[in-house]
């Protein structure tokens, strides 16, 4: 028995599985209470109280919601493509979960699943795979509204993916590495601009790449299909868009995938632009700082959703291709020039 445990391969696999399990259950809990937070914040923004009946302050509402989803009748359209109809909701969750494997939650080795030297590329790869679930879900349901939702989402996600990828190039140029751990390490220490140390501020990339940060957040909203970019499920015109025909836990999986994607993309934004675990205090506080920043960004996402009206489709495409893409390109060129002549930092 001891021989098995002394094998480094076995140790590696077991240790990784333990971390994966912990992250999986943390994220499931986080998602259910993110949905609760969304309903509460939405309520207060609209002068309501939000859910307040189940448990104190309505805190048990997510549990009730999940139970309801499990016991709902499962309905499958006759004309649906059965296999793809079943596979699509799973594909909504998997890419988001894979993204968490490269996010460094804290400075300690135990607080990250792995540190690969193409972490940023893995994130981009997974976000590009996110299109499949919505497109396939919309197509396999054999429903006009669902098909339109899927069509819109694939066009939207392909368009905004480019700007998102290019907006991370600025950070990449500054950090000189694709490893997310290395990128966070580069952002430690006090902020120094033109040789002057600025008090209370840290060396976060958001101060060097404000344009890239704004564009990253905008494209993140579009990639996760959140308002004002929620055209794939625009309920006023498409009933519910790509998930019109889904019920019970399959609908729940789409919902879970959307919120998990929101958390993943916010965690990446924190890592790339907001200094990750860096903050005042001992390194043990790193994970606290990380989750504080994550919570602030998540609140911003919810705030945006309940504040801005939805874009029209041509406005969306116009904005993506004629505004965001040129601005990111200019940002990359300017950053490269500044880095080359060694000014700025």
């Amino acid at each position: 028995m001891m021989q098995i445990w002394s094998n480094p391969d076995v140790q590696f696999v077991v240790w990784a599985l333990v971390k994966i399990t912990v992250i999986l259950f943390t994220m499931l809990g986080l998602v259910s209470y993110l949905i609760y937070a969304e309903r509460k914040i939405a309520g207060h923004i609209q002068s309501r109280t939000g859910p307040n009946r189940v448990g104190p302050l309505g805190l048990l509402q997510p549990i009730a919601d999940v139970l309801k989803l499990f016991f709902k009748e499962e309905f499958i359209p006759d004309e649906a493509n059965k296999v793809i109809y079943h596979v699509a909701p799973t594909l909504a969750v998997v890419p988001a979960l894979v993204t968490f494997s490269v996010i460094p939650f804290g400075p300690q080795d135990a607080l990250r699943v792995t540190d690969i030297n193409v972490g940023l590329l893995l994130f981009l790869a997974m976000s590009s795979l996110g299109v499949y679930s919505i497109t396939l879900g919309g197509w396999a349901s054999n429903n006009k509204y669902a098909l339109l939702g899927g069509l819109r989402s694939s066009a939207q996600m392909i368009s905004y993916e480019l700007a998102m990828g290019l907006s991370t190039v600025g950070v990449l140029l500054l950090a000189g590495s694709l490893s997310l751990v290395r990128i966070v390490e580069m952002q430690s220490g006090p902020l120094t601009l033109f040789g002057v140390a600025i008090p209370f501020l840290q060396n976060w990339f958001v101060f060097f790449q404000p344009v890239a940060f704004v564009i990253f957040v905008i494209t993140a909203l579009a990639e996760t299909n959140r308002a004002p970019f929620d055209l794939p499920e625009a309920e006023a015109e498409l009933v519910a868009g790509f998930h019109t025909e889904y019920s019970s836990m399959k609908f729940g999986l789409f919902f879970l995938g959307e919120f998990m994607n929101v958390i993943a993309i916010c965690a990446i934004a924190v890592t790339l632009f907001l200094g990750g675990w860096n903050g005042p205090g001992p390194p043990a506080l790193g994970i606290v700082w990380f989750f504080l920043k994550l919570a602030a960004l998540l609140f911003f996402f919810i705030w945006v959703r309940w504040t801005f009206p939805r874009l029209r489709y041509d406005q969306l495409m116009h904005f993506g291709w004629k505004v965001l893409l040129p601005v990111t390109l200019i940002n990359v060129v300017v950053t490269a020039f500044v880095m080359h002549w060694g000014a700025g930092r």
Partner: protein
Amino acid sequence: MIVESLFAAFAAVALCSGLMVILHRNAVTSALFLVLAFCALAGIYLLMGAEFVGMVQIIVYAGAIMVLFLFVIMYLNLKHDVETGVQVAVRRGLGWILGAVLLTEGALLLRRGWFPGPVAAPAVPPPAGNTEAIGEVLFTRYLFPFEVIAMVLLVAMVGVIVVGKGLRPGAGEEER
């Protein structure tokens, strides 16, 4: 040990999904199996220490090109070509010839004995990060091919826009 078993698993997935691409009757399912094959191939690249190529494989092929493929298959009403007996005969004949050529090649490779993989291990083990190495080579030694490809892609893009706009005179000015 882990690497070998992972390689076997990825290779099996790649081969099976590659077979399903040509065997399945539904075009959308075929396309999805192709995506799976690309992902398995990316896994094999990762095992070989080519992490940059592996990730780009997923981003470009699985994430961008296959999405457009699916787009075309799903949303454009593809009709079956009406084929005459001669066309079917030509297609079958070509298929038999190509199959025979491939089979001979496979047999030759087997006889030369390097089917189980490269015999000589690479002299220098690749460094931990090969992203920098690829960038370095791409912008020094292979700069000219790189720029040529960029030009070709630019021309293709302009061509697509021209074709998409249509050849009607003044069609571009109306949309403002």
